[in-house]
């Protein structure tokens, strides 16, 4: 293969990646704007309006209405806030708990055996099943749903963090820190944690995308957030019974949710490629 077509291909590839990343960034920005602005401007359309039930998309209900006459356009835009809050909340909880467990397991050998066996045990249960069972037991509030989704995500983050810590602890600067008498908490917090942040940030994007999907699944099954506070998941769940006559109840929030999750995954991939030079090298 000659160098010229390869260079041209690399150039095209870079251009396409930039467009896709830009588009993904725009989608995330748009959804964030909806999450911030839609509830105060449009409200949640929680009031029942049976006279307008199951109206197809058109004027004045652009995305149609559900079986209780609630406007799907308003509930989809305002639902962005709940779905995004779940995504960000689960990312934060998972990073804190999984990051801490991985940090300790990677550095303290004795803790490693115990903690990672517990993590292996949690990973042996299908994540969706564990989250659904926890949500059902803990109740359907926003915080409990976040906790229920976080528990199956924590082992994956802990395992990743442990791997990063295991490689970092072999670095010369850690030997130097030990030699000058730094305490273990100081080494972990001042030297290892800052160097593991990049990997954690990338992981956070994937956890966020996965949590938004999980919230939708929990709501769909019937153990998610109460419909009084619309989320894309519970708006879609409301359309389950009426799917044949009113597919728009599932279609519009489903479209928004899918676009956001795709965008977050694309941004996560881009971030990972930027951090890992071996991955970015493959693009050419």
């Amino acid at each position, binding site marked *: 293969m000659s160098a010229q077509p390869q260079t041209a291909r690399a150039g095209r590839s870079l251009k396409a990646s930039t467009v896709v990343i830009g588009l993904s960034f725009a989608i995330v920005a748009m959804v964030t704007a909806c999450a911030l602005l839609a509830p105060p401007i449009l409200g949640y359309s929680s009031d029942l309006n049976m006279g307008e039930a199951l109206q197809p998309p058109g004027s004045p209900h652009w995305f149609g209405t559900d079986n209780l006459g609630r406007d799907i356009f308003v509930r989809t835009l305002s639902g962005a806030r709940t779905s995004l809050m779940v995504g960000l909340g689960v990312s934060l909880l998972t990073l804190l708990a999984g990051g801490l467990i991985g940090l300790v397991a990677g550095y303290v050998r004795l803790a490693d055996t115990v903690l990672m*066996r517990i993590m*292996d045990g949690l990973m042996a249960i*299908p994540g969706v099943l564990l989250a659904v069972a926890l949500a059902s037991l803990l109740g359907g509030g926003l915080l409990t749903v976040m906790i229920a989704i976080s528990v199956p995500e924590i082992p994956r983050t802990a395992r990743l963090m442990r791997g990063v810590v295991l490689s970092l602890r072999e670095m010369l600067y850690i030997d130097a820190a030990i030699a000058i008498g730094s305490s273990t908490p100081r080494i972990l917090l001042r030297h290892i944690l800052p160097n593991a942040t990049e990997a954690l940030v990338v992981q956070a994007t994937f956890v966020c995308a996965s949590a938004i999907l999980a919230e939708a699944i929990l709501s769909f099954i019937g153990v998610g957030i109460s419909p009084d506070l619309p989320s894309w998941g519970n708006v879609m769940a409301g359309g389950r019974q009426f799917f044949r006559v009113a597919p728009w109840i*599932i279609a519009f929030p489903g479209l928004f949710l899918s676009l956001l999750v795709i965008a977050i995954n694309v941004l996560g991939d881009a971030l990972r490629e930027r951090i890992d030079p071996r991955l970015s090298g493959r693009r050419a």
Partner: protein
Amino acid sequence: MARFLFSRLLATLPVMLTVLVVVFMLLHIGPGDPAAAMAGDNASAEQIAQIRQRLHLDQPLVVQFLIYLRQLAQFDLGVSVYSGRPVATMILQRAEPTLMLALTTTLLSVLVAVPAGVFAARRLGLVTDYVVMALCVAGFSIPVFVIGYALMQVFAIELGWLPVQGYRPLASGLWNSLRSLTLPTVALTLLFAALVARITRATLLNVLSEDYIRTARAKGLPERKVVATHALKNIGVPVVTVVGTSFAALLGGVVVTESVFNLPGIGRLTVDSILSRDYPVVQGVMLVFAFVLVVVNLLVDLSYALFDPRIRQDMRS
């Protein structure tokens, strides 16, 4: 080989013990009395006491756990709070649709994903590569129930080619059974195949940059032969690994897919039990699924010997 198998089985013991503790503790982490929660809002004090006694919830926690272990040692997964039937029997009766769905999805996913990953890797940076990768990202980003309803709308409601919902058992004929599983399988395959195709592509790209591939090309072998003879053999281990590790996602997907397509499998049983707070059934299903995952991972480990002679040698020694 026997020693390797023994050591791997030994390694699964702490994992299964953790699973047992987690599944057992599920009943006790919720707020309030688990017996009252299972009995429902309209239950009398006697009914609540009856459930408490039947599930040994009136005993200390350690005693309850020991009773639970003793029951499991006798292959007793407990009894449903509502139907009074043994959980193991309920799971076995619902196993066929779930096994069929898992089997057809795994087969279809591997048949679609591996060629798609190879195809994308060989056309790196071209439009076809982007299309395959975009489909992969979409596959694991779109909720399986959205895909399910979209497929149902087009192929069952609009075109009428396939049944909308429900399952035809194998006893009614293989063709009928497969027909009823077509839409659920395709919906679940999009998720599963996306994970496998991405790993296939990434692994093949790594392999294609190895020295032995450069040597094969330098000898003048055509690219097709380089990939088929030298590269594909070396992607077996990571691809089988991702099939194994993604099996958890597949089982999770089964729970949702069976609800969408109204398949009377273990996933549907789980959702029904969760909604009716029949926790002994939920615990039983979780335990069975965790056991299946541990066995699948064990089989994945053993299958490495098929792909890599070095691992085969290590296992023998």
